[in-house]
């Protein structure tokens, strides 16, 4: 894309997203806490959109959480990132897609450092070669997984069975978009819409029939804060920031929150449970929470996937109020079963937060 070409209009806020053939880098947080999400994403990219995406067994964490918590030197994460790019190179790919927003910020940061400081790039190449024997080519295109869903939002819409619409009232559902800080706040030019007008999730809401909720703390951090969450003694920071957002969005009665960062999705879900148990305050309707979904989980619902195969029973906030509003057909009896249909028992119910 030539950003100076007037046909692209608001060029500074657009980004290049490759059309096919991707190397997929997984997220530590998403795999653990939303363990169906990446499988759903790969299925959408491969089988709904007919694209080629490579899922590599040899990949590792990018180490971003450790780096941002101050236990790793810059040179370490730089070399780990270089190893990830070397795996992409070895697999014969040029387009890198990562599932984690912390990782997306990390990859962007390393690419920017190498661009501005070629000597750091050479040092990294040397250390990587000496330690692992590997060599790498810098990706031609490096994007976040939500960028792909955004790019193909119309193609996905063409296949959907449901829309972000209240089936009874025919009104659009009110959807909060929460874009992870490290998606565009560090390097605005690398995010769709930049830091000022992030469109990567709001574009999904508009295309899939919902309406955006604009509220005062829309762009505030979820409060992960790395070491501010990892250490139990610091978690007041984390929950206070999520609470600030929830209090700010509550008067607008959102039906759904979507997030592109695995950490944000986790915190917006789990801190609702914690705030309910600590302060008897809930933010959804009738004592329930506001459902929080990742972009691929939302796409899966719209495409008619079984919500329990998509792992939505693993959210602490129940998703059933959303499913009912959208008129999604699901089997409540099926929620707590294993692969072979065996009933596994239900999770203990929280004392305050209502769950199905």
């Amino acid at each position, binding site marked *: 894309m030539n950003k100076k070409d007037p046909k692209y209009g608001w060029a500074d806020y657009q980004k290049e997203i490759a059309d096919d053939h991707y190397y997929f880098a997984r997220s*530590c*947080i998403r*795999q*653990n806490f939303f*363990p*169906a999400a990446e*499988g759903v994403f790969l299925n959408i990219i491969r089988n709904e959109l007919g694209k080629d995406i490579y*899922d590599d*067994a*040899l990949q*590792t*964490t990018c*180490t971003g*959480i*450790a780096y*941002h*918590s*101050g*236990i790793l*030197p*810059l*040179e*370490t994460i730089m*070399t*780990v990132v270089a*190893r990830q790019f070397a795996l992409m190179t070895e697999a014969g790919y040029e387009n890198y897609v990562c599932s984690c927003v912390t990782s997306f*910020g990390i990859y962007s940061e390393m690419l920017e450092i190498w661009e501005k400081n070629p000597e750091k790039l050479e040092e990294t190449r040397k*250390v*990587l070669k*000496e330690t*692992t024997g590997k060599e790498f080519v810098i990706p031609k295109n490096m994007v976040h997984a939500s960028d792909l869903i955004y790019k193909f939002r119309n193609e996905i819409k063409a296949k959907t069975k449901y829309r972000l619409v209240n089936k009874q009232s025919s009104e659009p559902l009110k959807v909060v978009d929460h874009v992870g*800080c490290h998606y565009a706040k*560090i390097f605005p030019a690398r995010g769709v819409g930049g830091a000022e007008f992030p469109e990567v999730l709001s574009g999904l809401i508009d295309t899939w029939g919902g309406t955006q909720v604009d509220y005062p703390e829309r762009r*505030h951090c979820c*409060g*992960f*804060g790395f*070491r*501010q969450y*990892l*250490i*139990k*003694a610091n*978690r007041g*920071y984390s929950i206070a*920031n999520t609470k600030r957002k929830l209090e700010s969005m509550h008067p607008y009665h959102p039906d759904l929150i979507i997030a592109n960062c695995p950490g944000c999705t986790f915190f917006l879900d*789990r*801190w609702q449970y914690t705030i309910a148990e600590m302060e008897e305050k809930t933010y959804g309707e009738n004592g329930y929470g506001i459902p929080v979904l990742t972009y691929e989980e939302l796409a899966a619902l719209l495409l008619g996937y079984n919500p329990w*195969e*998509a792992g939505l*029973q*693993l959210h*602490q906030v129940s998703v059933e109020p959303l499913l009912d509003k959208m008129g999604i057909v699901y089997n409540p009896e099926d929620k*707590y079963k*294993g*692969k072979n249909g065996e009933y*596994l028992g*239900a*999770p*203990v119910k929280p004392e305050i937060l209502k769950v199905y």
Partner: protein
Amino acid sequence: MLQKDIRFREGLNACIDCGTCTAICPAAQFYDYDPRIITDTVQTRDNNKIEELLKSDTIWYCGECLSCKTRCPRGNTPGYIIQALRALSVETGLFAESEKGRQQLAIKRTVGESILKFGYCVYIDDVDTQMYPEQGPVWDWLKNNREKILERTGANYKGNGSGTLRLTPEESLVDLKKIFDATGASQRFEIIEKYSKEKAKQLGIPFGKGKDNEYFESVYEGGIEDE
């Protein structure tokens, strides 16, 4: 020493004390924390003041959201300055002089060791609701039934090959260890252990390996007040 750190050089370029970073900062809304003052302090190049920062809780309050990078009219990044100060605080052992700094031991022993053990920053087997109660009852349900649930959700839990929660191959773990050894991470881990052990001795708190000892529990759960 700070001038050698690329994060410091990129993060600071003639701060004009406008306070925009403080206005946007989530940490400043929660803690007694002001990124403008930190930026101003390091700009003075007063080594005594900088040493005080390295020994203080202050540099550990930042959440690294990097909202400051977006907004600074001078293109500065207080969050990067914090990274450089934290690195120096650990390298010099001064992290052990503050309550918040001492928490680095717990991060090293959880996330840091998880990377080398599993190839993931966090892995389901090592996460429980005792250390992370906000995970909620749904986490207990997942963890207690993880083979069956993860099979249903299409994961490859502890399996070979690719997939969600797959076992990281030995060759990848070996690569990570070699990279950690060659780039200073292993050395930083040793420094964190060394100064933490010395501090525990000084404070008279039992210190041991892993998570099952009083010093670890104290830094993780909150608060070893200095004498």
